[in-house]
């Protein structure tokens, strides 16, 4: 045996012995994932949410009609209508009924009083008490999407759909004409309330947990040291809504501060003599719409917040005397005094009147806080609907809207959780050399359990706990998906390994292999 052969054999012997060791050291720990469960879950559709609507007609409307055939006809039409509005996850159950209201309400023209009257005569209070008792028994707060729609005709009051701030009662005033077409038109306008949550206007990435930061920006405090009765105004205009949201939907915290000497030097402020928003002639100043996007990006305007939650800033900007009154110039020629910056917050300009004192009280702040309230609606993705009469502006989010927000978020959470589980699964399959620690397996298992729990609760119509478990499912999914141990390996693919080994091993192995062939052929 010649030396070359010895060398060759020894090298290949080393390679042969070394390969298993190399393979062993290169294999990564991969936790077994519940693949079957995962795939079953993703292929199964979400359970549907059924919404029960009780349609109540005042007998006064039916006076002119033939009662029974009319009711059945309406029911038929409404079922048709509901199918039109039926979404992927919503089904409707509709009951139609004629009622006789005790008191003559025709002379009333205050929506609040009418709502109160309706609640009393339909014994809504009793129902509420019953529900409270039920909740006490079960020790959880329940909510069922059961709505009562009452059709009235009050000639003194304008026609339209009236949405009381609390409770699940809605009433429609048909006005003077109680004919079939008008009735169906109104019902057609009513159904969009079940799709009031939109994606297009949702400015925040995550609506669940938020921190609201309210800032009083005083451009020039010289001679007008300003303070605001923030707590009073907040408690009056926003606190009820926040409480409602915190109780049922999410965790929202807030704080406030004052920043002085916020300069406008970054904006082009135009001076003009045109009529301002109130059609009063006189000098006013305006910022063009184009420069607005720079507003909150300027470090001076935004302040630090000690929280990990997404932050929404609501800024009350008081322009200095030099720039009062200040408006935002829209292209359409109309002047506005508030705007929204997606994902960051909203700004409302407060032009000080001469009569206003150094302290902005609850009444001075009314306009701005209602603007903030509306901006908050936008951030949560709640749409203002046509023909709807939101007659109580102090209540930012109505019960029915909140119901829809919760149901919508529940469905979105479930879809998102399922989607991210599936994409995680495909990712793991595509990258067989990726390490999967035990942690990820546990998170995935937890997420699957939560999804299943949420779906079973949906079937039981316990939407509240379904919602909260869907929230936990999302959290678990995110923890699995963004686990630092896998995200670092996402970019280390098989090609990279070749890129590392080839430059050294190929030139080394080439002479060895060719020599081996030569040796074999020489025998």
């Amino acid at each position, binding site marked *: 045996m010649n030396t070359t052969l010895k060398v060759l054999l020894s090298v290949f012997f080393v390679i042969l012995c070394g390969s298993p060791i190399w393979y062993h050291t290169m294999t990564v720990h991969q936790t077994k994932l519940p693949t079957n469960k995962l795939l079953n879950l993703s292929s199964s559709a979400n359970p549907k949410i059924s919404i029960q609507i009780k349609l109540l007609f005042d007998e006064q409307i039916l006076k002119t009609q033939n009662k029974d055939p009319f009711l059945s006809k309406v029911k038929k039409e409404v079922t048709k209508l509901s199918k039109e509005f039926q979404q992927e996850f919503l089904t409707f159950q509709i009951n139609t009924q004629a009622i006789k209201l005790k008191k003559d309400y025709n002379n009333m023209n205050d929506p609040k009083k009418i709502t109160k009257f309706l609640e009393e005569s339909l014994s809504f209070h009793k129902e509420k008490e019953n529900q409270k008792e039920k909740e006490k028994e079960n020790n959880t707060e329940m909510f069922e999407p059961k709505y009562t729609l009452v059709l009235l005709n009050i000639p003194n009051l304008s026609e339209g759909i009236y949405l009381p701030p609390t409770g699940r009662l809605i009433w429609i005033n048909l006005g003077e004409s109680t004919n079939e077409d008008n009735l169906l038109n109104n019902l057609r306008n009513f159904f969009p309330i079940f799709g009031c949550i939109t994606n297009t206007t949702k400015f925040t990435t995550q609506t669940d947990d938020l921190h609201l930061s309210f800032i009083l920006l005083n451009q020039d405090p010289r001679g007008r040291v300003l303070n605001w009765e923030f707590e009073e105004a907040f408690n009056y205009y926003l606190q009820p809504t926040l409480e409602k949201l915190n109780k049922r939907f999410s965790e929202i915290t807030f*704080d406030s501060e004052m920043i002085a*000497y916020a300069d406008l030097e970054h904006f082009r402020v135009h001076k003009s003599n045109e009529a301002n928003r109130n059609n009063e002639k006189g000098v006013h100043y305006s910022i063009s719409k184009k420069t607005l996007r720079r507003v909150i990006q300027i470090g*001076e305007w935004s302040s630090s917040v000690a929280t990990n939650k997404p932050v929404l800033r609501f800024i009350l900007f008081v322009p200095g005397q030099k720039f009062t009154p200040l408006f935002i110039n829209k292209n359409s020629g109309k002047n506005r005094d508030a705007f929204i910056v997606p994902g960051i917050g909203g700004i409302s300009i407060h032009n000080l009147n001469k009569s206003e004192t150094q302290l902005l009280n609850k009444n001075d702040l009314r306009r701005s806080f209602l603007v903030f309230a509306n901006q908050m609606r936008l951030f949560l993705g709640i749409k203002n609907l046509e023909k709807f009469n939101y007659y109580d502006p102090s209540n930012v989010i109505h019960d029915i809207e909140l119901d829809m927000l919760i149901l919508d978020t529940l469905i979105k959470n479930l879809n998102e959780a399922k989607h991210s589980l599936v994409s995680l699964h495909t990712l793991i399959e595509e990258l067989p050399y990726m390490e999967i620690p035990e942690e990820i397996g546990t998170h995935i298992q937890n997420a699957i359990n939560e999804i299943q729990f949420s779906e079973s609760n949906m079937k039981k119509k316990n939407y509240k706990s379904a919602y909260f478990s869907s929230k936990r499912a999302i959290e678990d999914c995110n923890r699995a998906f963004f686990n630092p141990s896998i995200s670092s390996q996402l970019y280390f693919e098989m090609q990279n390994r070749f890129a590392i080994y080839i430059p050294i091993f190929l030139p080394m192995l080439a002479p060895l292999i060719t020599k081996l062939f030569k040796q074999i052929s020489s025998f």
Partner: protein
Amino acid sequence: MKHTPLTILFFLFFSLYFGCLAQSQDKYTEALTIKKLNKNKLLFKFDFNTISKNPNYQNYFLFPKTFGNLVKENSLEYLRFSLTQGMYHLKYGEIGRYSPPGGELIATFETKEDLESKFRTVSRKISGIFGTSQKFSDLTISAQPFYTEFNSLESTSQRTHYSSLPREPVCTENLTPWLKLLPCRSKAGLASLLNPIKLYDLFYHSMSVEVTRSQENSLSFHQQLLLVVELKEFKFSQIFGTPLIGPICPFSSQTKIQIEGFSDYSSFTPTPEEIGNNQVGFILKENLNKKDFNLHYSPKEKTNNNGYNHNNIGNDNSNNGNDNNNNFNNNGINDENISKNQSIKLNRFLKESGKIRGGVITQITNLEKNDLHLTLYDSLPWFMRVYFHTLTIKSNFENKEIEITDLNLESEQGNESNLFANQASLLRIQTSQDHGRPSIFELALVLKPGETFQISVDYLKGFLNFEEHPFDGNRGFDIAPAIVSMHGKKQNLKKRIYYTDSLLLMLPTPDFTMPYNVMTITTTAFLIWYGSFLNNLTGRAGLKLKKKSKAKWIIKPDKF
């Protein structure tokens, strides 16, 4: 609507009422103290004070929200953070609380649980706010002084954490966030004088923030800027680059400039007035914006010295180390480096022999006419492995070693009267852990008038890991100063804190090119192996020995 006098009165009353209400929530004051120090030094001390009564930690007006959140989330009772450039020597005169060079962070928490993790959070947030590297003040250099009281709060000993980064540079990027914490920023009031370009050109510069939460549920936020310049005459526009032009801060309930220690107030233009409490200066009113306020001081007896001297920065440190060592036996008091009202003199230096061992010597001299009760807190990093048995204290009176009584308090703060029963008592020792905690010793000392104590301790230098060295490892390591605090009835009004000099320690540094050497050697070894291996395979590959040739070895390269 016609305004009758009654309605006008009514409005006036209401605006006054609400105006008062608006300011009663938080109170903010501004003050500038100009003080004459020894050796042609002048002190400019800016104090910005915000007091918030009954804060709810949710709605902030003048109190900065960032610090409100910090106090609430970490249940802080006291926080002091300072950034300093230059060393302040006591020979220039006493200026109250001052700071050692670099960054210093002191935090007192409500409880002693989780102290270290809370301190870590606080130091990270502080680094974030001021753009400093305070977050590196981890447990290897920070510790708890048990017997030094940094604030007027009660029994803070076990709840206070302290860290000092003597090498932290101070820059305008630290000043900008500091100014942003002021209600008027640098746009109005005394802060409009603070021009970053001029400020860092001075002899000593120290800015600090101090938050105190008192028992009466009020929060106080104190921002202080100390500037020491070397001048005989001055003008605002000369020091700060601008006179006081801007309006006074409208949120400030009092804006005053106070002048201290000058013999001739008539040399000032405008001439200062009595402002109450036996103080002389100016109370600035809102009508300031009509005329620039450019305070000018030129003493009547002029000397040739032009005053302002850029080259003096940092040159005044000549008296550390050996100079003072020679003074040790001379009673220390006749030293020319001592000012009139100075009550204590501090020196600290290294005693080095080679790159292995060394010693730290701290000298404390009592310049008062009565006994001084002092505690000394000395924290040395782990790479100075302290031999505690070498801890000795010498007095210049008897010129012999003083016996150190071990009080063995076991981390319980003893009664203060017990602390000073002996001339020197050892209160606490913490041994160091490599790459872990520092070594600490705390002493209680009683010094007679004119007495000098020389406290010395030896150490062995440790080896740092390769990556633990800074980029300029050969420059040396800055060692934070020891803290001396005064106790006793005489100083009952305010417990004073003094800092010794900071030290520069040279450690054995490795050859930083080492990894490249290792790489070169490894590659060479690999090349030798692979070269011979390749030679073996290819070199003889086509080797054919011609039978009848004379030469034994003719190598014919194969087609290969």
